[in-house]
């Protein structure tokens, strides 16, 4: 690079720009965009500086285009519906913040914990400017308690934490379920158990997110698979929480929290503001906070409303909200709390689960969730390249589970592989328990993102056992050989 810089500008000073040109050339990117950036970046400098930098860039670009040839790298065309100005570089945590703000977050309560802290740090700057109130509480218990308190009073309230904080919040999430109070809890997982590996990624808090509390306390759990998904899930979580009157957990991990992706956010704010279902106070009857309606969601009165005073409680209660431990009450109310949000699996504006790759029957289906899905898609493409019929499905809504669509996926797959970043195979357990079908687990607890090559090896092994016939096997082997370099996509 020193040489390229010296040859082009008779100075080694521009070697950083030469590297930029070299990388642009390596990936066959258009040079004009970079030249514009160079010009604007050095606008305050003398003309010779700009010329020198441009020359170094061009020399680097030429070298990058000629020195190596990367056959497998295809730079896709820019989306036609957007120009560069619409694209935003953001992290998963940044996307959560953007989703919260666009959905009109009013209250945030949090306690610092890696890797969720940056969500609170950014909200602390933005929320006061937008009329919101943010408080750093004394612990995670207080954070979720205040979130539930604000939700009870009608505000859009949220908190964010990691696994150890979620463990502390579990009891209060149960209160949110029982008292039917909306609340949004973002959880960015890290290595566990206990203090674990605070700066390493893992997907091992799934069970805690799904079940953590006493009793039958199902709640809605969303697990975005990419940065844009974090934005959408964060915004939609408020709507779901209000509509179904329940805590909603947005489950991500360190890898997704911290990684940058280019996102083109929608031009119009996609989130519905305030979607509480309100009671009509004029019918003269005593207000029943937990009335058993057709939808099983009861119209919710907020403190300050005339004539609708009531008390909510963590005790089992009747339709009025009065404590009751009668058998029929507990049966009816348990059913209410579970069945009221089953319709969420058809909820508009959010991808609940989605299938990619080959349609119809396939050799291997890869079922995934959360941040791992990027590697899963890459594995699927590589496997297809080798001639393996392969498709992948991501499940974003982990509770309630879109079982019908998952079963349909199973029907099409000879083998189902579930790769995930934990030791126990928590998602595999959930899926095989819910569907009653066997899955092939692939669990890694390395603290780092999953490796495509390792998943691919599993896919190959599964594919070779699914088809006993020799003929197609040889053909696939030939094709695999032909495309051998492709397998090193990771």
């Amino acid at each position, binding site marked *: 690079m020193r040489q390229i810089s010296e040859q082009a500008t008779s100075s080694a000073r521009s070697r950083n720009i030469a590297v930029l040109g070299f990388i642009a050339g390596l990936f066959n990117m258009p040079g004009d965009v970079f030249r514009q950036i160079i010009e604007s970046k050095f606008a305050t400098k003398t003309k010779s500086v700009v010329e020198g930098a441009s020359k170094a860039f061009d020399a680097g670009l030429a070298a990058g285009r000629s020195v190596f040839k990367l056959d497998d790298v295809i730079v896709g065309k820019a989306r036609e519906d957007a120009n560069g100005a619409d694209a935003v570089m953001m992290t998963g945590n940044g996307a959560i913040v953007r989703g919260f703000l666009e959905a009109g977050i*009013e*209250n945030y*309560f949090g306690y610092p914990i890696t890797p969720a802290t940056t969500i609170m740090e950014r909200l602390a*700057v933005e929320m*006061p*400017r937008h*009329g919101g*109130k943010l*408080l750093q*509480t*004394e*612990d995670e*218990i*207080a*954070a979720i*308690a*205040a*979130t*539930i*308190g*604000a*939700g*009870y*009073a*009608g*505000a859009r*309230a949220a908190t964010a934490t990691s696994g150890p904080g979620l463990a502390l919040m579990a*009891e*209060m999430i149960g*209160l949110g379920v029982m*008292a039917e109070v909306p609340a949004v809890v973002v959880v960015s997982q890290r290595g566990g158990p206990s203090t674990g590996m605070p700066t390493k990624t893992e997907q091992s808090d799934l069970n805690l997110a799904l079940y953590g509390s006493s009793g039958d306390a199902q709640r809605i759990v969303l697990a975005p698979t990419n940065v844009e998904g974090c934005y959408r899930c964060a915004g939609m979580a408020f709507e779901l929480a209000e509509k179904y009157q329940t805590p909603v957990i947005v489950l991500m991990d360190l890898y997704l929290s911290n990684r940058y992706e280019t996102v083109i956010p929608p031009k119009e704010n996609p989130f519905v503001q305030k979607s509480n279902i309100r009671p009509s106070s004029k019918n003269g009857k005593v207000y029943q906070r937990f009335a058993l309606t057709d939808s099983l969601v009861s119209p919710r009165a*907020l*403190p*300050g*409303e*005339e*004539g*609708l*005073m*009531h*008390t*909510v*409680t*963590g*005790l089992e209660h009747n339709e009025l909200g*009065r*404590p009751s431990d009668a058998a029929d009450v507990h049966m009816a109310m348990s059913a209410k709390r579970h069945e009221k949000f089953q319709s969420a699996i058809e909820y508009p504006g959010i991808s609940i689960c989605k299938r990619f790759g080959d349609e119809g029957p396939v050799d291997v289906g890869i079922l995934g969730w959360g941040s791992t899905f990027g590697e899963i898609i890459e594995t699927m493409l590589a496997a297809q390249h080798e001639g393996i019929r392969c498709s992948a499905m991501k499940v974003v809504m982990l509770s309630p589970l879109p079982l019908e669509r998952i079963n349909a996926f199973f029907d099409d797959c000879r083998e189902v592989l579930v790769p995930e970043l934990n030791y126990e195979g928590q998602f595999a357990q959930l899926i095989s328990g819910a569907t009653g079908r066997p899955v092939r687990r692939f669990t890694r607890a390395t603290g780092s993102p999953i490796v495509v090559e390792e998943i691919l090896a599993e896919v190959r092994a599964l594919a070779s056992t699914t088809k006993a016939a020799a003929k197609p096997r040889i053909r696939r082997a030939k094709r695999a050989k032909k495309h051998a370099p492709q397998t090193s996509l990771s």
Partner: protein
Amino acid sequence: MNELLRPVYLEEKLEQVRGDGHQDYRSKSLPTWCPGCGYFSMAEGFTFALNRLGIDCKDAVVVSGIGCASRFPFFVSTYGFHTLHGRTLPVATGVKLANDALTVVAIGGDGDAFAIGGGHIPHAARRNVDLTYLVFDNGIYGLTKGQTSPTSALGFKTSTTPYENADEPLNPLMLLLAYRASWVGQAYAGRQHHLADMIVEAIAHRGFSYLNILSPCVTFDKTDMTYANLDVQVRDLPDDHDSNDLMAAMAEASQGDAPPLGVLYNVDRPTLTDVMDETARRSKETVS
């Protein structure tokens, strides 16, 4: 006719009680407390205070924890949230921040406050959240049928301390003063009118007000915090007590054998909402 000789008619008396309006704050649910429990005085004092202050039922929220005292919201006709053991104050803080127009009253017993919930009190107090915290202090766990609490006296025998309680009791008033609560007072269930007046003052205070209410558990405590004992022990604060003087308040609070009744400490300082409004103003001036 001599007033003392005039007969008392039940209807007339009921009219008088209902007419003054404080019964409107009672719900149709009858309290589940034992007959003779000091908590009846609190229910009476609370409804009296809301009525006196002219706070509408719809504008008051009672947040409670778990325990005998925490059953309170069911017995009044305001908005209520019966939460988890020990989490009264953070839930109440959330309610207040979500809607500043509400009058928020947090209620719990001594176990709810100082055992499981002890970690939350300093923070609600130092932030000066504009809410009132009424702690019904009977020195025992009543709902679970008589175990020792953080305010139980040394030597007190309960089902979990059959060979006498050996833990030094906490002094709630000294704690709250050290936590910089902006209003600290104490009342006694056996002096119902004074109790009602104190609840009025506590709710009227702008900022975090803490009222410790000494209240006998007539079922599980036959020896220690009884009406007979407390009647003799309690005393009024001296007439010249300066409620702006933290050290004077500390000195009064430290005399646990002769519990002082009245307002020990009362200062005005910005509430959490005031501070947040100021933060919002500054955030709009700062360009980043």
